[in-house]
Every structure is written in C-alpha cells, then in structure tokens.
C-alpha cells in the first residue's frame, strides 16, 4: 500500500489531534502570577524607566560604578578635614633622627590675635618683634645674652622638623594643655597648640620647669 505525502500529513494531524484533545485551550486555562513574580517584574519595569538604568544594567557596569563610588568616598575622606573638630592637634611622625610635625583639625590660615607672654623672668626685656602673614615672633633678652623666643604660627600649612637624636623629650601639662618639652645642655624648646595656633618657645640658659610653666601659662 502506498501513501501520498498528503495522506502522511493528514495522519500526523489526526494523531496530534488525538493526543491533545484532552488539553484545554489557551483561553480555558486559568493562570495567575505569584506576588513575588509580580513584584520583581514591576521593579524591573520601574528600573528600566530610570535614567541611570543604562549605567547599571549589567553586572560589569555595576561593579565599575561601585568602584568609582568607593574611590570617590576615599578621596573625599582624605581631602576634607573633619567638620565637627573645633580644635587643632599635632600630627607627629617619629623617625630615627627627627620628628615631623604637621597639624589636623580646625586649622587657622592667618594670624589674627597676636599672642605674647605677660610674664617673663626678671632681667628679660623685649628686644625684637616680627610678623608676617603666617607667623608672629617675639624675642626677649637679658644681660647675660640669654633669650626667650616665642613663635606663633598658623596651623593650616606649617611643616616642622625637630631633632630626635640628641635632645631629651618630655611632656608636661599646663591648664589642661599638653606641652612637648625638649631640653639639651643650655636650652629648652617647648611646643604646643592653643587657640588653634601652633606655639613654640625657645629659651637659652638654665630654666627650671616651674619657671617654664609660669612663662607658658602667662600666654595672652
């Protein structure tokens, strides 16, 4: 028995109809998307409408954007001084031969009020006064050529180095201020921050610690 191609096709159609006769039609099936699916789809549609969608629509793009944000935050954190800080503190790096000093906090960039000592030991007289846009300097001298030199510096852009090999170091406290004191044969150097300025006092000759405290405490 021979069959034409039309007969074969008709046979296949008949078989297929028999197979699927119990399956309901598309309009007869009741279907409902789950809430989770609905939410996800509405989120996706919402995202597609966003202007930033084209920048974050692939995993690679998202990664690049996240990296850029992290770098920007790091740069901002390093570049912006802390807004809440209203005081200036030392930032010290101690090396084998020297101490490097710079400042952090709410720094000042110009000399406003010029500070001086209301007390210097007997015999000292003011011999020199100097100021520029970044510093104020006063010098007292006695008959034995001993000197007291006070330097008031801005803290915004000041770099300083102090010897860390030869001179002896100690910390003292005067009225809550921490003073770094450096002593060596024949001179004393002390430095501290106050009123957001950086102060440094250099004294030659033998001075006892109470006298140094009295001098520094008289800053006004």
């Amino acid at each position, binding site marked *: 028995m021979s069959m034409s191609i039309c007969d074969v096709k008709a046979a296949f159609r008949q078989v297929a109809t028999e197979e699927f006769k119990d399956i309901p039609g598309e309009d007869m099936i009741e279907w409902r998307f789950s809430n989770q699916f609905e939410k996800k789809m509405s989120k996706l549609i919402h995202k597609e409408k966003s202007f930033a969608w084209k920048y974050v629509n692939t995993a690679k793009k998202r990664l690049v954007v996240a990296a*850029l944000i992290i*770098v920007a935050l790091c740069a901002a954190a390093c570049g912006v001084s802390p807004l809440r800080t209203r005081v200036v503190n030392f930032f010290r790096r101690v090396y084998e031969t020297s101490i490097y000093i710079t400042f952090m906090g709410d720094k000042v960039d110009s000399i406003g009020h010029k500070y001086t000592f209301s007390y210097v030991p007997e015999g000292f007289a003011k011999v020199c006064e100097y100021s520029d846009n*970044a510093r104020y300097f006063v010098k007292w001298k006695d008959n034995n050529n001993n000197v007291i030199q006070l330097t008031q510096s801005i803290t915004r852009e000041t770099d*300083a*180095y102090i010897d860390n090999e030869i001179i002896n170091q100690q910390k003292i406290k005067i009225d809550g201020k921490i003073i770094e004191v450096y002593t060596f044969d024949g001179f004393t150097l002390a430095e501290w921050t106050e009123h957001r300025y950086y102060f*440094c006092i*250099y004294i030659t000759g033998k001075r006892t610690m109470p006298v140094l405290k009295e001098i520094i405490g008289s800053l006004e």
Partner: protein
Amino acid sequence: MQKTRIVSFLLTVLLMSTLLTVSSSADYSVCFNNTVYASTSANVTETGLLTASNRLIGFPDVMTHAFITTYVEKRFLLLFWTRVDIGEPNNQWVDYVYEDTYIGAHVVQLDSKGTYRVTAVFEVFGSGGPVDVITCQPVVQY
C-alpha cells in the same frame, strides 16, 4: 572593549591621585647634626599674595651657618609641578644665616588660581657633623 579601557584608565588616575594626596612630604632620612628645629609656613591671601615663612634653630655653639633655599611651584595635570616665576635668579630665594636662630619670610604675588607648593631646603652647617639638609614642603590653595 574600548570603554573598559577608558574606565580602567580613569580608575587608575583616580587611585593615583588619592594615594598622592594621602602620602606625606615627610622625609625620614633627615640628619640633625647641627639643627634643633626647622619649619616652614605658607599662606595665601584672597588677593593671591603668597607668604613663605621660614624658622630655623640650630644647636648653640655648634651651628656655624646655614643656607635656606625657598621656591614656589604650581601643580598642573594633578601630578606635575612647575616652578613659579618670582623674579629672582633660578626663581628661588636664598637666605644666608650666620646666627643660631632665624626667622624670615618671602612674598610673591600669584597671577592665577591653583594649588601651590612651597619648598624650603635648609642646609645647616656646623661642628656637629656633616651638613643637615632638611626639606619642608607645605602646600596651599589659591
């Protein structure tokens, strides 16, 4: 592919600039044979007048003399510095110091806004040992 390269390049530039901001100008190989204290302060007024103020204290009876070389540079392309014309030979000020304490300043009128770096090189001679070379580099914005 080209976009990825551009993004990578930009990221590298950003990271480099961040690292440069964080890194300090401190030089930890400084010698202090004759020097007690060296410091530089820099200030720019609203009108662009830059002041570079230097302070030096040497060991009494040890320090003999010192040269302080000061110059100003302006930053360009984030990483490079070019020296500002201050109208002096080699565009730098040189101070000769023969006392064991010194304070002094130089001023220059800046003609454009930007980031400026003051470099002061203290060369301090004396009987304490070889010459001390101390570099202070405050950076200011105008």
